[in-house]
């Protein structure tokens, strides 16, 4: 038995190592000779972008934590008008790609957008540039990423024992105090997990920051590559993002501490009832977030689509849709399968520090800008080719470049964090006693996994899968560089049109993506509500 565990550890370790390949390729750029580009950046871009990256991370971090947690708490603990449909509607913004939300917001809220035109004409408020300063971009990120925290915190609140809150109430604690002293501390690990994903994604973002012309680390990465054609420096800079993420993960683990709440009891009893004006005020707040983050952008996309439908629509859309669909389904299946293997509870028992570290490494790809990851992968393949040629073999570049296989590999490396977060969270909730009793009953390992672990992990597997599916569908830079001929996706069409300033036409593929993302989120919600 021990031997099998040992062997399987090696296999899992190798798997994790393979997934982390792009990270290692990117990190190995430090072995290349330095260039004077670093000193140029140090004198020009770096000072500003370090401070603005920090401000962005802090702002977005506080924003998503507060908004996600408060919204989750309200829909779980408080009964207010419209609560039932808002509970699932708040998931929907996740279906809108961040870059789409950014161009809609700029179109609506910037100096030349309707809102400011109206403010100037009717209220005489002077116009302002929402792209200067930090608040507008922070707000955009918060509205697009809060569902991560909302999702996690909501699940956690649902599992909190109502008795604890009742006890708090009986002791005379005001609702705010119960929220702050009981609910939030208990939900801390979940909030931290959602926050981690948000911060990693913010760090790696290029679409939103370039529309706002805001400087973050990715600005320097793209400058090194795009302006100075230096892949080495781009990779060196990108590897710093990985280091930052590594620390973020460390702090998340720390925040989680030893907290493991083995509870799967869910109660649907509401702790508080908000009636009358109070209830409607809460409704207004939650509804406002929904409007701003989903309904309004969707409405704008619909208007644009209607304006240019006959011009833009063609049969090609069936191809875009098919490519997006096939890539999304196959990548999701693959990622979830691997994330499940990596997160099986038996792993924890035989956990070695090295294995844990390797698995952690395999999730770091989420912090790399997609484009850097894709080029890292090309260079990884190139290195394997060089080794193969050295030993008398031939290059494998032409077999792998532009193959679906390599693209799927990129998705696995990039989105493992999302799936693993989810599968491991559900795996951690399996009490060790299940494994022990299965062993006492003489069940084989395979049977234990099949009959006990997998069914118990299913909610996490499904949740992870649906989140990954939406993310893969929205993915742009890696798909753009690695896709095979004829595999243009909806996201690529959105990018090609919007990069030429043709937002109305870009709205059509964006609309299709949003609708499908929304359907995926609704399936997610359906499965989720069956769980409770």
């Amino acid at each position, binding site marked *: 038995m021990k031997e099998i565990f040992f062997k399987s550890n090696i296999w899992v370790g190798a798997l994790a190592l393979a997934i982390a390949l792009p990270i290692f390729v990117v990190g190995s750029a430090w072995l290349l000779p330095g260039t004077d580009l670093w000193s140029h950046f140090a004198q020009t871009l770096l000072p500003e972008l370090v401070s603005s990256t920090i401000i962005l991370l802090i702002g977005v971090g506080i924003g998503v934590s507060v908004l996600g947690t408060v919204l989750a708490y309200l829909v779980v603990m408080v009964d207010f008008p419209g609560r039932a449909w808002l509970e699932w509607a708040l998931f929907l913004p996740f279906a809108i790609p961040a870059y789409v939300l950014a161009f809609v917001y700029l179109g609506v809220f910037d100096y030349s957008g309707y809102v400011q035109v109206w403010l100037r004409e009717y209220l005489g408020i002077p116009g302002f540039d929402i792209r*200067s300063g930090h608040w507008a971009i922070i707000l955009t990120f918060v509205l697009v990423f809060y569902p991560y925290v909302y999702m996690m915190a909501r699940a956690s609140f649902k599992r909190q024992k109502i008795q604890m809150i009742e006890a708090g109430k009986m002791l005379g604690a005001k609702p705010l105090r119960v929220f702050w002293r009981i609910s939030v501390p208990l939900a801390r690990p979940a909030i931290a997990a959602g926050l981690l994903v948000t911060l990693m994604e913010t760090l790696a973002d290029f679409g939103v920051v370039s529309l706002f*012309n805001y400087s973050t680390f990715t600005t320097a990465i793209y400058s090194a590559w795009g302006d100075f054609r230096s892949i080495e420096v781009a990779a060196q800079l990108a590897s710093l993002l990985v280091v930052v993420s590594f620390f973020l993960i460390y702090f998340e683990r720390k925040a989680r501490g030893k907290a493991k709440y083995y509870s799967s009891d869910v109660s649907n009893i509401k702790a508080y009832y908000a009636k009358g004006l109070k209830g409607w005020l809460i409704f207004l707040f939650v509804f406002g977030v929904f409007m701003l983050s989903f309904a309004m952008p969707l409405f704008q996309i619909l208007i644009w689509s209607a304006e240019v439908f006959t011009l833009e629509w063609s049969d090609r859309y069936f191809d875009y849709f098919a490519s997006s669909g096939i890539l999304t389904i196959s990548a999701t299946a*693959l990622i979830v399968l691997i994330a499940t293997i990596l997160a099986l509870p038996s792993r924890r028992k035989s956990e070695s520090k090295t294995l844990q570290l390797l698995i952690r490494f395999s999730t770091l790809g989420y912090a790399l800008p997609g484009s850097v990851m894709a080029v890292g992968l*090309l260079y990884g393949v190139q290195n394997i080719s060089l080794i193969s040629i050295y030993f008398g073999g031939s290059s494998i*570049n*032409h077999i792998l470049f*532009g193959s679906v296989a390599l693209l799927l590999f990129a998705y696995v490396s990039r989105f493992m964090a999302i799936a693993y977060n989810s599968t491991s969270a559900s795996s951690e909730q399996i009490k060790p006693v299940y494994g022990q009793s299965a062993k006492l009953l003489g069940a084989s390992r395979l049977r234990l996994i099949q009959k006990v672990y997998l069914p118990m992990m299913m909610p996490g597997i499904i949740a992870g899968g649906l989140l990954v599916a939406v993310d893969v569908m929205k993915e742009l830079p890696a798909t753009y560089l690695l896709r*095979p001929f004829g595999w243009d996706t909806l996201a690529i*069409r959105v990018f*090609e049109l919007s990069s030429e300033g043709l937002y109305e036409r870009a709205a059509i593929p964006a609309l299709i993506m949003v609708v499908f993302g929304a359907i995926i989120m609704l399936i997610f919600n359906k499965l989720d509500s069956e769980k409770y």
Partner: protein
Amino acid sequence: MNTIRLSVISLALSTLLMGSVTQIQAASGDDITVYSSRKEHLIQPLFEQFTNQTGIEVNYLTGSGGDLIERLKLEGPNTPADMFMTVDAGDLWYAGTQNIFQSVNTETIKSNIPSYLRDPKGLWTGLSVRARTIVYSTERVNPSQLSTYSDLASSNWNKKLCLRTSKKIYTKSLVASIIHNQGEEKASQVISGWVGNLAAVPNAKDSHVMNAIIAGQCDVGLVNTYYYGQLIEKTPEAPVKLFWANQETTGVHVNVSGAGVTTHASNPSGATQLLEWLSSAEAQAIYGSLNKEYPANQNIDSDKIVSSWGSFKQDKMNLSIAGILQADAVKLMQRLGYK
């Protein structure tokens, strides 16, 4: 459980297979394969026309210029690409330095496209001309106040200027041309003057620059003329107009979109044929009008809307220089805080 697992595995395997199959298809026969950073909606109608006339299929893969150059380099002799097409002289020049192009010097191309729009060694050929010039508000600016790119740095335009980001390759090539024409010292005065005159953070797109002018955030800006064409086609009454810069001096800065035959093309004759066809009057008429650009072939007229803007003197600087000086241009802009 088992069936789920099986279907997952078979799905994964079948996609792998499909990937390799499409790969093979792309490389086979008389077909021509093009890597292009010119967007799909601008090239697909052209290729369709070419296929109708010659029977030769054209496969294409769009991508960002830098990405595709990297991919071509790594694919080396095994690349499926016969042609690389991109939208900036700097990218074309850089691709030329990376041994991605072979030289093509056919008489047809030479007679169709003037020499300053081609690589001196015949590595690449410009296929459309993109003029970058001044755009102004007809409500707040009298065109007599306008003259050159450099003049936009003068204090007359304080808080009245909108520019596109320095990260965009069109800005880089324009600044490279200013360095070439006026020297680095004068260029740095111009850039810092521009930065000081900005009314807003530099915009991500040319279309944003014009929207800002229309909304009154600023009075003047710099755009590629086809973006103006897109705007005017949609809203003919928009209170903005083009002004031809540097007419008394070096002429309007022009850039090209262009293409070349790859070094390791498996179908070089087909690719050359396509390139010649793209330079022909017939293709040039479509090429330009699809995007309201100027034809590179000087024997044909521009699109109707485009010719209504009148003729102008072009800067005849050989466009390879834009490529050579681009890194200097970026360093200059980053030093002077042009975001």
